[in-house]
């Protein structure tokens, strides 16, 4: 473990949580979008997939070894939620089908709000971890004074 590994781990988590917040904001913004940017039907809810960063961590490796190879978290990708779309009866809508139903995005505002709270709290937790690492380092330096 290097001097600033705790910072690097927390820092990568901060970036990851910010991305989660960005994606949630995008979902909320497009909760009523009946047309996606790629032109294929309504907007589909996006989700961030996170994975542990670092390589060479075999299942036989001890926890200390895997910690040594660990470099925080990284974003594996942003995937689309495949749950079915909502159908809303609105015959006046330009995107309504022959029966008058409009296919709305599979975005649930309540889920997005809880995701937002989760991302915010996780961000807070990582900031606290970083602050603790910093104060531990400073305390160690104080030994020399």
């Amino acid at each position, binding site marked *: 473990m290097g001097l600033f590994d705790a*910072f690097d781990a927390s820092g990568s988590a*901060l*970036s990851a949580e910010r991305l989660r917040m960005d994606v949630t904001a995008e979902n909320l913004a497009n909760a009523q979008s009946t047309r996606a940017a790629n032109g294929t039907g309504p907007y589909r809810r996006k989700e961030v997939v996170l994975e542990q960063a670092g390589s060479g961590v075999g299942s036989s490796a001890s926890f200390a070894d895997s910690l040594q190879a660990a470099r925080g978290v990284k974003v594996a990708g942003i995937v689309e939620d495949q749950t079915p779309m909502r159908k809303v009866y609105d015959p006046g809508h330009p995107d309504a089908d022959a029966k008058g139903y409009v296919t709305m995005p599979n975005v649930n505002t309540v889920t997005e709000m809880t995701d937002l709270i989760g991302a915010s709290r996780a961000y807070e937790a990582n900031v606290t971890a*970083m602050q603790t690492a*910093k104060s531990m380092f*400073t305390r160690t*330096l104080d030994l*020399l*004074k």
Partner: protein
Amino acid sequence: MLTSGAEWGVPSVDGATSGAGAAQQAGGGSGFGSMLTDQLGKLEGVQNDAAKASQALATGQASDPEAVVMAVERARLSMQLASTLRNKAVEAFNDVFHTQV
């Protein structure tokens, strides 16, 4: 006298190395001296990274504010570590210097 002439010479590392001379003199030993010079070189790199990152943030080119904060914080802590070690070394040097003979 343990320290020979060669060990007193500090290869110049641009910028923030004004304290290096005193620190190396106090520490003595070529191993410690070269280690110190190495570390000061790295310290300068870290400081430059922080300066670049802050500038990018100030001019609106930084897309990742966390990276900027991390760079600045890393630079601050590295500087703190270096200056504490330097002060300690100078203190030790002064202790030797003020020895009654």
